[in-house]
């Protein structure tokens, strides 16, 4: 036992590496099955056009979901996403309406998003208000404020070519999808390759151990919410570009879809565990289900039913696969 005790990379280690991604494999399998089924039953589902649609819809959930993954990994939750998106799109629309330059308007929106997120983060990190309550407050206050500012009417502004371009496609891909993909890469990088990202996992895994390691737990908690606010603001930019107006009632229930995407992607609400790739697949699964059902053309109420059943079934299959692979002992 004198030399290094690391066992040579045997079969075991390889199993380990592979089984570390069972969750992702399961989700990919489920998405493939969804594609096959909808490809058969839903007209136009496999068309290139529809793939673009799926990407675009996915980006609305996805961008916010990347940050939400970190929030949930840190053991917190941010339910203010939807109203945050709506409020910031309204603020930016007002700025544009008052003829502020585009860069300033959007920039102000991004800063505002980050600032509001930081407020929630500070409430949690510094003042120990549970994050559900802190973001519930934002949820209620921002939706109310946005509706109040606009009288629930869309805020329109002069056409802006750059903004229109952002709502459109580039090389056949929606700009919002491109932004989503770039941000995905960035978040994968941040979550895996930076001290901040790893600290988020450490804080979610055992906050008091993380603190004793010298990690500034308060700072990490604030920052994940700052990021979440910033990503909501970016979603707001995409929404603004796409709708051409600022709408206080938009993005309703988005927080639900975002959290569902993260959880379906295998991140535990108890914190400490989760992967960006899982979230990507979770968001994709949810978007594909929504899209395929609309295209199938059944009654929208039946869609809700079927969606509920499919989401549970997908996670059920995935959990079963995980358990068979021996990782899923709660």
């Amino acid at each position, binding site marked *: *036992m004198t030399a290094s*005790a*690391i*066992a040579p990379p045997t079969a075991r280690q390889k199993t380990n590496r592979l089984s570390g991604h069972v969750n992702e494999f399961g989700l990919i399998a489920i998405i493939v099955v969804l594609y096959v089924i909808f490809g058969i039953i839903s007209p136009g589902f496999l068309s290139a056009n529809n793939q673009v649609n799926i990407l675009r819809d996915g980006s609305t959930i996805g961008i916010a979901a990347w940050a939400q993954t970190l929030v949930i990994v840190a053991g917190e939750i941010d339910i203010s996403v939807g109203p945050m998106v709506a409020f910031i799109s309204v603020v930016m629309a007002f700025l544009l309406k008052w003829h502020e330059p585009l860069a300033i308007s959007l920039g102000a929106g991004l800063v505002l998003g980050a600032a509001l997120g930081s407020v929630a983060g500070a409430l949690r990190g510094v003042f120990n208000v549970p994050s559900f309550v802190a973001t519930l407050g934002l949820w209620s206050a921002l939706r109310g404020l946005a509706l109040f500012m606009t009288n629930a009417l869309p805020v329109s502004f002069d056409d802006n070519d750059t903004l229109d371009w952002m709502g459109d496609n580039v090389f056949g891909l929606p700009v919002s999808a491109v932004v989503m993909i770039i941000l995905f890469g960035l978040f994968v990088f941040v979550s895996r*390759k930076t001290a901040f990202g790893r600290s988020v*996992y450490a804080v979610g*895994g055992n906050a008091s151990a993380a603190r004793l390691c010298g990690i500034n737990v308060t700072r990490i908690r604030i920052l994940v919410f700052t990021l979440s606010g910033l990503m909501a603001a970016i979603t707001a930019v995409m929404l603004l570009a796409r709708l051409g107006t600022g709408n206080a009632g938009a993005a309703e229930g988005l927080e639900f879809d975002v959290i569902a995407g993260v959880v379906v992607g295998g991140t535990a609400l108890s914190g*400490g565990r989760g992967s960006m790739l899982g979230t990507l697949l979770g968001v994709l699964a949810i978007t594909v289900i929504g899209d395929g059902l609309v295209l199938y053309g059944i009654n929208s109420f039946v869609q809700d039913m079927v969606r509920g059943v499919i989401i549970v079934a997908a996670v059920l299959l995935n959990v079963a696969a995980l358990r068979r692979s021996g990782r899923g002992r709660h």
Partner: protein
Amino acid sequence: MSQTIPPIAELRRATRRYPGVLALDGVAFSVQPGEVRAILGKNGAGKSTLIRLLTGAETPDEGVVLLNGKPLAIQGAGRTREAAGRGLRAVYQELSLVPSMSIAENMFLGAWPRAHGILDHRSMAEATRHALLRLGLKLDPFLLISALSPAAQQMVEIARAFQGSPRLVILDEPTSSLAAAEVDQVCAAVREVAAQGVAVLYVSHRMNEIRRLADTATVLRDGRIISTLPVAEARTEDIVQMMLGRSEQTRTIIPQSGGETVLEVRNLAVPPKLNGVTFALRRGEVLGIAGLLGSGRTELFESIMGLSKPLSGQVLVAGAPAPRRYTDMIQLGFGYTPESRKEDGIIPMLGVDENTVATDFRQVDRAGILSNKVIAEATRAIISRLHVKTAATTTPIATLSGGNQQKVVIGRWIHAGSRILLLDEPTRGVDVEAKNQIYDIIRSLAREGKSILFVSSEIEELDHVCDRVLVLRNGQIAEEHAAPKIDAERLLAACIG
């Protein structure tokens, strides 16, 4: 041991596998009524696994478990209840209490006394008071577990195991967070029940306890039983050799006189436990702090590190007042390992690598980007220096044995390059071999010029590592013992005062 009495508990050809590990390999094991059996082995030898099979917490992959001559039949959730129904009580290695509930409720967890379906809190409290008193504890039964010190929590668990009329009591490292007085209480209780014909299985890494208590000992190595032998007739060296598979080198401690003063504590007061602690730590010195449980050693560390605010007093680092914030202390080159490894030490779901480098990410990044290669190298350096037994650098730390987890918790400060280490009970739950390795690590760190404050409730080990030992009594430094004249007996006497 008369073989005519049927064994109270028996394992037949029991095998238990975990992903990648054969934790128990066709083990045959039995214990008779009234027998006190020690189970010995290194960290990861399979002791706790054997116990979990007996209690029904886990099911063997192969083989059968018999209690009172009948096999455990229920699979799944009811199995532990079946075992408990046959008179089995266990103290698991991991704290199995619900922190948010009262002592009394934890005492009867899952088997609360009821009158007409309504929980009978009064008789619960009464019985709890009784059971605690048996171990010399005077605690309010309605106190929440979370309000107790780790030691008191452990005592509650032990009291739980002895309560009622058990036929087999299993104690998995019951004393790892206890100090002398409590250990004595536990030993007395064990002898008392054994005299009444109750069988006791006792896991411990402390040989002197084994000698005081056990009739027989079963030595496990790598999931197999090496031998079962009468304790009185066996030499410690032989037992250790069986555990390790080789003989242990005898150790010699070369006491070193330290260099300049690196840390000075003056009149530190943290009511109600500390009132005016004064001492100095020198460069290259291992300074032990002895004291009874609850004497305030942990509070002392916490207030030095800036984790809690002392009422008065000064902490000087290299002559200058120390910063009051924990993170600033870390920047100054301090490192701190907490006494409860599971709650405050490890980040269970993360790998050994991340648990190691979390103290200093800057060493393992390249322009702000973490490098897997550098992380793996840094981790491997720690792993090989501290002899951590792990399958890979990325193995989740929760799957390591306790001793190996502890080495990582110390190793993270070696990674961070800390110059002053505060180690609170670093050898808790660690096997003989790993203990010796930890002593070696501490000594070699001291040789490198690092300074170490060392707290242990196992007084016998202080003279193995320390250049000096301070005795903390009644909130003050009562005595100072310097090597080579550190003696366990005298230290203990000093602690009690």
